[in-house]
């Protein structure tokens, strides 16, 4: 009996340690998403700087002050934001899926949300406690 319990415990520990190590993020799907987002970032960057868009608390990018963009381009900026958010949602899903835990999607999303915000350079707008603040 004791042997069984010990075995179980060590098995659980092993599981926990493995879980605490690294998350699998080197999948082709995640690479494709990273490449796509990296490419789009060249277009998004000036929009972060001007405050037209900001990093929302839910891990997405939000159009927060469209008036920083000429009227005729607001539609394409909105499309850009939507495309970025589609990639981000796919990224969160893929990270969860790549680690055999699709149910982690929401946790992955909130972790990313926090990290995007924490790591945003000074001058960018981020959403904290429901309000937009400039870092």
């Amino acid at each position, binding site marked *: 009996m004791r042997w069984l319990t010990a075995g179980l415990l060590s098995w659980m520990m092993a599981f926990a340690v493995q879980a*605490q190590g690294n998350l699998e993020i080197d999948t082709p799907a995640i690479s494709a998403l990273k490449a796509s987002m990296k490419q789009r970032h*060249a277009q998004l960057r000036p929009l972060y700087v001007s405050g037209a868009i900001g990093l929302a608390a839910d891990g997405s990018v939000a159009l927060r002050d469209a008036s920083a963009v000429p009227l005729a381009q607001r539609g394409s900026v909105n499309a850009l934001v939507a495309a970025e958010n589609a990639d981000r949602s796919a990224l969160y899903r893929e990270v969860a899926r790549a680690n055999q835990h699709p149910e982690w999607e929401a946790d992955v999303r909130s972790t990313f949300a926090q990290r995007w915000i924490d*790591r945003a350079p000074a001058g960018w707008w981020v959403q904290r406690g429901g309000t937009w603040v400039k870092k």
Partner: protein
Amino acid sequence: MPFFRIRSLLLAGSLALAASACVTINIYFPAAAAEKAADRIIDEVWQARENQSPQAAPAEQGAEQ
């Protein structure tokens, strides 16, 4: 007889424990590892412009790894 019953009871109990432990592990989310993973991805998505001029960036992307 009683001995066997106790044993099977213990076995069932431990199996139930194992099963419940399983469930606990399944819902456990490795927050620290996820943060590390997020940082790596964020670095890659954002860093392109830091080290290179934005114009040159797209051509060079595929090469590394």
